[in-house]
């Protein structure tokens, strides 16, 4: 085992996959010479050169669709969108092209492409640099949507995403980039589509992803002192999400909180809650509480009050404990 930061785990995943398969390449703004705006590709340009670590003009639509074309001709692009907010510049590419190319062309083409992007707050970067938009992609048939909560997960999931034959929206979180964690020296993969029970518990299930997993774990610690046993399920993949693990957990705890950093309304928590209310409602002993950001744009100077955290999860869990029906 070794200690490694999240951002470096991303780099390792890309590097190993590029070593393994010469068709894998990285493309994006300042990913090359500069090593990436957040440093995810530091050193890769020196190792793989400009043909495989491709700096682009500022043109998210252009280079994402270019990657789509390259993918359908046998390459395996990793696209870096600098901030998730900028993905608004290439939604046609992702939604009308990449997501549909395989199905729409009668399975002739496969489009093995990973589109990486960091979401969320943490930099006080304000309304146009802090959004969490994973729910959009989860609503689009053809895309897989992956979110990693720690260095171990990000490496194993990213390697799987690069090997996946389908397009994967791979969502990082800016506050996690500096997070340290322990990973094996040897190669490992984490399967896409499988949730991970990050902490076992018996009273309430908290379903979450990305940074909020860690916040939920903190909340679980706090709550354990109050005698409440929280099970924390990390979805890891939002689309397709792992119903079995989630439902099994709820069948045990009979209480559910869903927590994410995105705006609460119409976030991915809604789908989890709705699926539960549709398929296993009778398992519930209390209302399903959701945690998410308030319904306003991300704030610059009040960011720490805007972004949901452990306290919010704790409150939601307590609410499910109180409000039995």
């Amino acid at each position, binding site marked *: 085992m070794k200690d490694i930061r999240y951002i470096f785990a991303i780099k390792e995943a890309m590097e190993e996959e590029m070593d393994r398969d010469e068709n894998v390449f990285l493309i994006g703004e300042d990913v090359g010479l500069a090593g990436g705006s957040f440093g995810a590709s530091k050193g890769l340009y020196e190792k793989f050169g400009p043909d495989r670590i491709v700096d682009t003009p500022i043109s998210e*639509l252009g280079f994402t669709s*270019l990657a789509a*074309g390259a*993918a359908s001709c*046998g390459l395996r692009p990793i696209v870096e969108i600098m901030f998730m907010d900028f993905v608004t510049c290439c939604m046609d590419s992702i939604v*009308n092209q990449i997501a549909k190319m395989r199905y729409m062309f009668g399975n002739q083409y496969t489009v093995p492409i990973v589109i990486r992007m960091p979401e969320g707050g943490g930099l006080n970067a304000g309304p146009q640099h802090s959004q969490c938009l994973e729910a959009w992609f989860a609503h689009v048939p053809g895309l*897989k949507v992956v979110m990693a909560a720690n260095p171990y997960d990000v490496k194993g999931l990213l390697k799987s995403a690069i090997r996946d034959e389908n397009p994967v929206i791979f969502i990082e979180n800016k506050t996690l980039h500096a997070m340290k964690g322990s990973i094996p020296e040897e190669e490992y993969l984490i399967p896409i589509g499988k949730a991970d029970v990050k902490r076992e518990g018996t009273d309430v299930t908290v379903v979450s992803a990305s940074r909020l997993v860690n916040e939920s774990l903190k909340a679980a610690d706090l709550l354990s002192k109050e005698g409440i046993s929280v099970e924390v399920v990390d979805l890891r993949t939002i689309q397709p999400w792992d119903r079995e693990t989630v439902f099994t957990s709820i069948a045990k705890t009979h209480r559910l909180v869903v927590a994410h950093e995105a705006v609460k309304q119409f976030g991915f928590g809604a789908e989890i809650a709705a699926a539960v209310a549709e398929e296993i409602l009778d398992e519930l002993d209390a209302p399903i509480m959701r945690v998410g950001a308030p319904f306003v744009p991300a704030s610059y100077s009040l960011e720490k009050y805007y972004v949901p955290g452990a306290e919010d999860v704790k409150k939601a869990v307590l609410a499910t404990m109180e409000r039995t029906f």
Partner: protein
Amino acid sequence: MGKPSKEKMIEMYRAMVKIRKTEQKLMEVFSNGEILGFLHVSIGQEAAPVGICSHLTEADYIATTHRGHGHAIAKGIDLKMAMAELFGKKAGYCLGRSGSMHLADKSRGIMGANGIVGAGIPIATGAAFAAKYKKTDQVAVATFGEGATGEGAFHEALNFAAIKKLPIVYLCENNGWAEFSPMSIHAPVQSVTKRALAYDIPAVSVANDVLEIYEEAGKAVERARKGEGPTLIEVRSERWYGHYVGDAQKYRGKENVAQAMAKDCLLNFEKGLLESKVLKKQDIEKINTDLDAEIEEAVRFARECPYPEVSEMMEGLYL
């Protein structure tokens, strides 16, 4: 490059007639209600796809548009499977899922028509990127209309291709109309070649003449294969019919349509071939009747094939 060989010219003529006749047939079966959705025919514009595809191998790539039957045929698409797709049948290229706006044939480098204006341009650019990456000598072609040059996708793709000197030919079929509006609504310039100046991409404008197009396309494809980068070719095409079948072109003067029809690239080519004795009247008749039979056969096939099962609709989303 120069003029095509006699055999090549006959092949080209055959391809143009095939496009013309196929689309005439499509208009007919569309009116029957046998083809659904939108149908955009390219009758009058057959010269451009044939002019360019005559220089391409099956390994080369082409990304086309909503008005893409011509390019698909010129690039060698299987007519039966294409027809089946248009009829929405399971035997179609897209398993009947997508129809006219999404014809694609991976085995022949036909990367797909596209329902989103301009979207194919960066995708074809990606194919060129892949060819360069893999150091093959493949070339990619992006086709689009003059209207598409208003989209950011056009700009972003050409910028990238020029920077990287990618092996691609940008083929703009400027038929003067984008849906229901003339080019003056869409651009402050008269010729799409002006757009290429922003990227230092060499550009040329040619008439709706298959031999002229063949010549310029030859140079452009050669440049691309040699690694000298992209070229933009504007073909001054002519759209005879409405934007889609069913559009009565009320916005367009009768003379404008008549002028377009007068510049019949197929008839002109045919005349030339007769004059230069490359083909005789009988050859032409034979080509035409053969194609009629082939198209009829494709329609028959498409008609008789089954629709996909509803259960099949749910299959194949992920690999």
